[in-house]
């Protein structure tokens, strides 16, 4: 018995017409921006060996992966991310290529999300990877690409930067178990001030602890750097802060009035993955970040090639949602011409239609036997020109 033949699996959906136009426009715009900055597109397989994602640093919990086996019984996953496969390619086929490498992609990733939460298991991500440079200008290049990408949607946007090094240095000075460190990290990530304060109070009192307590509150504009300056207990952290401040200032100048640049020193997600800069991007009125990225200098070394990298991924579904909600919806293209031919004149009709198409018009051949049905179709579809091809061909301009 078939129970599921008329529906799609949870977390997936069919996109129709206008939804496709929005989706494809975003993808086209992003790829065009990336390519105009010298990024080359890559397509990696939708199926990968589980091992590619089963590494130490970026943690993909196995319960969030779509798994299957190949004909030899080996464990495969539906690609949950594009950065890992690209790292795999860089460490193998692109190993002898001159650095830096500038790569971009636009492909679907699959992750199981909790049911009934209104989330998608199938997300299109469009992003860049800049591989082989640890310079500040590489960070700026990625931020500046993110700015250009967000600006292209004509909506209010904001880019937020942070630096994982500050948290790592601070927490490294605490003599506590990894379990406690993870609890501190989690409370900073969720800006859970009550729990963070309770936890840190139980560890005594020191400049490091005071700084950790304040970390999640250190977000906003340039004033954040001044506040942070006073709190940071040592020179190394101050240096990181100075670097980030320079990036912040440069980013503000690059961005101009197009959007806003903010900083959040409490961005501490994926601490094992990021090694420096962290980037997030937001669109007004969309409840989740649409850009997520940063510097991950140790990731490619998991595949045996020790080179730095920085990049971001844009959640195309998220952008599409934001545009559908707040932006201008595209109207479906209406054919310019409908060509009708009675039996016997079909070949002539296709030739006529092609002539119109060669002039750049959208042309349909009417798929009806009688003229009246064809005309009714033209009226229903709001097609402006109705062309009849028979012994005495003529054109009709519709309303």
């Amino acid at each position, binding site marked *: 018995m078939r129970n599921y033949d008329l529906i799609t699996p949870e977390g997936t959906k069919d996109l129709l017409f206008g939804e496709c136009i929005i989706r494809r426009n975003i993808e086209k715009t992003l790829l065009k921006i990336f390519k105009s900055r010298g990024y080359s597109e890559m397509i990696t397989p939708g199926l990968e060996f589980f091992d590619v994602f089963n590494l130490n640093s970026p943690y993909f919990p196995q319960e969030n992966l779509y798994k299957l086996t190949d004909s030899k019984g080996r464990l495969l996953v539906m690609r949950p991310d594009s950065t890992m496969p690209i790292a795999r390619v860089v460490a193998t086929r692109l190993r002898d290529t001159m650095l830096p490498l500038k790569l971009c992609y636009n492909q679907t990733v699959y992750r199981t999300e909790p049911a009934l939460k209104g989330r998608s298991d199938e997300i299109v991500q469009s992003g860049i990877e800049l591989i082989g440079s640890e310079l500040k200008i590489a960070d700026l290049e990625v931020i500046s690409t993110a700015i250009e990408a967000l600006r292209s949607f004509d909506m209010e946007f904001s880019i937020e930067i942070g630096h994982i090094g500050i948290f790592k240095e601070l927490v490294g000075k605490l003599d506590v178990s990894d379990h406690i460190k993870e609890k501190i990290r989690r409370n900073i990530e969720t800006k859970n001030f009550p*729990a963070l304060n309770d936890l840190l109070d139980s560890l005594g009192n020191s400049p490091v602890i005071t700084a950790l307590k304040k970390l999640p509150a250190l977000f906003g504009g340039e004033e954040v750097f001044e506040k942070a300056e006073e709190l940071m207990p040592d020179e190394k952290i101050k240096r990181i802060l100075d670097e980030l401040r320079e990036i912040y200032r440069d980013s503000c100048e690059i961005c101009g009035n197009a959007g806003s640049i903010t900083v959040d020193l409490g961005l501490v997600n994926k601490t094992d993955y990021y090694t420096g800069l962290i980037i997030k991007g937001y669109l007004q009125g*969309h*409840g989740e970040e649409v850009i997520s990225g940063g510097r991950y200098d140790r990731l490619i070394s998991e595949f045996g090639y020790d080179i730095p990298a920085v990049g971001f991924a844009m959640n195309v579904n998220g952008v599409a949602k934001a545009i559908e909600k707040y932006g201008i919806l595209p109207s479906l293209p209406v054919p310019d011409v409908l060509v009708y031919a009675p039996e016997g004149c079909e070949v002539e009709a296709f030739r006529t239609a092609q002539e119109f198409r060669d002039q750049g018009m959208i042309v349909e051949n009417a798929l009806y036997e009688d003229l009246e049905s064809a005309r009714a179709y033209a009226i229903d579809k709001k097609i402006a020109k109705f062309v009849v091809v028979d012994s005495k061909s003529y054109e009709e301009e519709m309303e």
Partner: protein
Amino acid sequence: MNKPIRIALTKGRLEKDTVGLLEKLGFDCTAVREKGRKLILPVPDGNLEVVLAKANDVITYVEHGVCDIGVVGKDTIMEMDGKFYELVDLGFGRCKFALATKKDYDFYSGYGIKTIATKYPNVSRRFFEKKGMDTEIIKIEGSVELAPLLELADGIVDIVETGTTLKENGLEVIEDVAPISARLIANTVSLKMRQAEIENLIKLIEENL
């Protein structure tokens, strides 16, 4: 004027406590007090909009960003989890999660796997996982106290305020699981995009707790 900040309140006691707090801050909450059956209500002088929802839904609405901030119990946060900022412990709505059994029942004795009845399976699972104890967890929707009385379960994990219901049914708390109170949560993007407004409101709230 800007779009109002939308605040989702958990219907019932937390709603009353929060409205009391908002009034203490000097906001005119007449519309919320005289709400009738309306679910979205203005607090005009505060440029706020109050949304009344069930506890779990407060989290859902805030997570999706259709409400900017919300007031919800730590109990719901612990059970549901999700992606949002948990900014302030509001101090009211205090109670606790506790493990309770029939009076004088020796819960930890024997090697048999214990059965727990609860409305909060995630909280219960985590509590016993931490102890390294395998348990069988049964989700109950209504009065959980019934389960041990009917001998479906060895114990319950539930919210305890005064303990009167437990006592009247011959049950007792044998262990506290976690303290609970109302929390102010915020959508991760709203806090960033509307930082000044939300931070001002939080400052006002913290000064008046």
